[in-house]
């Protein structure tokens, strides 16, 4: 297990630091608080930090070469989860989903918040893979 981690082979040749863990934590905390109390700016920030930093830390640890695909995947997963939450409160097709968005229903709002945060993350991932890679990594 240790073998596929770069640092296992060269333990003393690294600075033993990473900026990502605190960001992952901040993401988890803000998402939990935001979703529980239905504070959507907090939830969206939290989920973006969480998805972004998970993609970042996994890349940094060498499990992925680029963060983007993972970011898209995580974003998509949150879109699905968010829509499932909304789906638990509505019956019917697209129209009823749109209807629900206008309703003053805490659970539906939370579902849409999660889905929207996921969509933003996925979008950032798609844009990133098209632009940043080309500019920074050539």
């Amino acid at each position, binding site marked *: *297990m*240790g073998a596929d981690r*770069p*640092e*296992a082979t*060269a*333990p*003393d*040749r*690294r*600075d*033993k*630091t*990473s*900026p*990502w*863990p*605190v*960001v*992952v*934590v*901040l993401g*988890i*905390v803000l998402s*939990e*608080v935001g979703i*529980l*109390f239905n504070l959507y*700016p*907090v939830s*969206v*920030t939290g989920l*973006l*930090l969480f998805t972004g930093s998970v993609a*970042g*830390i996994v*890349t*940094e*640890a*060498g499990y992925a*070469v*680029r963060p983007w695909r993972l970011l898209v995947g995580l974003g998509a997963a949150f879109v699905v989860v968010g829509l499932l939450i909304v789906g638990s409160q509505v019956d019917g097709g697209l129209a009823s989903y749109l209807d629900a968005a206008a309703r003053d229903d805490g*659970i539906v709002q939370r579902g849409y918040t999660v889905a929207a945060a996921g969509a933003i993350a996925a979008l950032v991932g798609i844009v990133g893979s098209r632009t940043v890679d080309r500019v920074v*990594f*050539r």
Partner: protein
Amino acid sequence: MGALLVGIGAFLARTENWRAYAPLAGDPAATGGSHEHEQGHGHKPSGIIRWLTTVDHKDIGVLYGTYGVIAFLWGGVAVLLMRLELTTPTSTLIEPSLYNALLTSHGITMLFLFGTPIIAAFANYFVPLLIGADDMAFPRINAIAFWLLPPGALLIWAGFFTIPLPVDIGPAQTSWTMYAPLSAQQPNPGVDLMMLGLHLTGVSATMGAINFIATIFTERGENVTWANLDIFSWTVLTQSGLILFSFPLLGSALIMLLLDRNFGTTFFAVEGGGPILWQHLFWFFGHPEVYILVLPMMGLVSWILPKFAGRKLFGFKFVVYSTLAIGVLSFGVWAHHMFGSGMDPRIRASFMATSLAIAIPSAVKTFNWITTLWNGRIRLTAPMLFCIGFVSNFVLGGITGVFLAAIPVNLVLHETYYVVGHFHYIVMGMIAFAGFGAIYYWFPIVTGKMYQKTLAKWHFWLSMIGVNITFFSMLLMGYLGMPRRYATYDFNPALAPLASVELLHQVTTFGAFLIGLGTLVWLWNIVQSWAEGPEITDPDPWNTKRDGLHGREFAWFEEQLAADGKLATTDGGEASDASRGSSELRSDGGEADEEQLATDGDAEEQAQPTDD
């Protein structure tokens, strides 16, 4: 929120930058892989950024330790306020509602914010050293696990911070067991915040446990086998298994409770799953939790006590087996916390049987420690005193547990101070004691300094006497029928011996302040010695080489001293222990021995007085 995102972006850009320019760093663009640029020679950044970004197991150990100590101090202040209130039967100093809040916070703080993290502190720092690993298996997950704790604590304590604010959020008054329906019905959002905080600390503990399991399985050094794995790592491994099977359950139960509170579900409502469901779920976690706390501390004592008895741990294998046995059994006893809840008597009887059975492996350990001491060359250093106090307190704490596990006794003593006495003999008398002993024992390695011997002895005796005064009078109060968790006890003297109860409460408060005093002495000793104590140059401050009990962690310390050029020359550092025949100069003493045992050191005497 937007500003926050930008700030974090800047932080990431900055910290990523220093790495890119680290000396010897490869050119990231040329090497292609994004992690290659870490291969530069390790220079840690300085100041707060270093602590925020570190993934080094030793740094993280220090962070856990600092955190645990802060939590311990808050938990202590909370309980001293409660003890002051209890010197009189009526409500004088604080409102009963504040009493309830302090009680809740004390319990949760001590178990989740002090107990579990202080063990993680020792385990992070020392398990990799003891098993010859470079670091934990997943250093970054290690850092995430730690950083989940500070926000967890802020959320758990949130209700106290909001007291001066004009908002309707107060501290939770649910007690640490959070029994439904009380916990489901208190409208205070402080309860939600506390549960979220608890959830975070649970996630943290689970991540840490996975990391320890992976580390101990996969990162052991070449000559560390299962047969000679040290006893502390064995207990951490067992503890991690217990965490893995119990904390996720607590997390799920908490979420169910949060759903009940906020979204109208009925998991624990009478018309739904019922309040007893909470008790089953909670104690299925809660009983293993007490062993999560005590097993690694038993491991520490099994590691340290032999060093100062001059003998190997007696019956090493049986100590390991009993650890594993306790680990397994601890999942089969939870309902002994619920004997009074109206369960089917046949089920109750079977839980009584398993609970009594757990006394067997516990007694195995006790006899092994005592036998290790038997005919040993005992040196009463501060770590040793705390180990002996630990064994002594376990006798009282364990036996009262066995009494409580007997249904007829339990029905009389349940929910009285007897229970409080029982588990405090264990949580304070053992868990905190082993923690103090280990802090003294490893103080030279972590700080490079030596603590002040006399103050350490004051600390021990104040704590030992304080614990026994405080918690023995609680046992007596339990016999008199004093119920636990009450802010007042202004009952009719015709119904119960009020005068005796009041006296015992005052004795208890006196004892608690002795413990508090001892803790202040300890705090001063640690802080002052760390800042100003003499530098250690002797790689064997406890003189364990002589008995062939030099542990791997001190061998590592020796390398470290040598690398820093601080190692005392043979006639310099050795001179002080000449009296004790430091003839065994094998470079790493007994550590190759099959069972890795710790031994003794008269170290305390020599490391302290003169430094060079």
